[in-house]
């Protein structure tokens, strides 16, 4: 396989207005936390909070486009949201190979999204299969 234990991959992602708008249209989620500045402020946030699952879309891009092989399929994906993400924030994404399961051609990654202030926006595990 094209992976070694502890291989590290890095990307940057930005939650642009286009990303926000397209995700909103795709998900049809118009919860006021994500769409109403006043509502978000009343709940203690400085502005409207970006959809956490935008980060899952970034993971989809990472797995589909950024690995050394295109012969991949996502088996499972876990995410824990730690801090809210806001519009136009740049997120540093880091993933490293945390498990290799040759017998079933599966690879596990541990990943995290880091906000500009150094706080973790989200972290979790991804398991992919390497297609023969």
């Amino acid at each position, binding site marked *: 396989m094209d992976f070694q234990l502890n291989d590290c991959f890095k990307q940057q992602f930005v939650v642009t207005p286009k990303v926000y708008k397209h995700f909103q249209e795709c998900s049809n989620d118009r919860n006021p936390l994500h769409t109403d500045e006043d509502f978000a402020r009343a709940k203690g946030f400085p502005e409207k909070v970006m959809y956490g699952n935008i980060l899952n879309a970034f993971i989809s891009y990472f797995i589909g486009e950024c690995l050394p092989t295109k012969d991949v399929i996502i*088996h*499972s994906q876990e995410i824990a949201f730690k801090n809210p993400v806001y519009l136009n924030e740049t997120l540093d994404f880091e993933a490293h190979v945390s*498990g290799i*399961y*040759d*017998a*079933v051609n*599966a690879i*596990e990654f541990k990943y995290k999204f880091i906000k500009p202030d150094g706080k973790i926006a989200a972290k979790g595990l991804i*398991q992919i*299969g390497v297609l023969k």
Partner: protein
Amino acid sequence: MKRAEIISQLNAIFEDIIDEGPISLSDANTVNDVDGWDSLTNVQLIVAIEKSMNIRFTSEEIQAWKNVGEMIDCILTK
């Protein structure tokens, strides 16, 4: 690890991965005997077993198993 301990761990892993209620495996069980055990869940099961027991199988070992009993025999060799 004793055989009974392995069966107990496997039951817990299968229940977690397949998520269709209690599972009580026996040596004679095959893929056909456990609802939800298919080729996709099999990958998840193998990964979960390897992680949980800190062991690694080879693809040849997995392909040779005819039933749960042979899977356990293989685990006992690790």
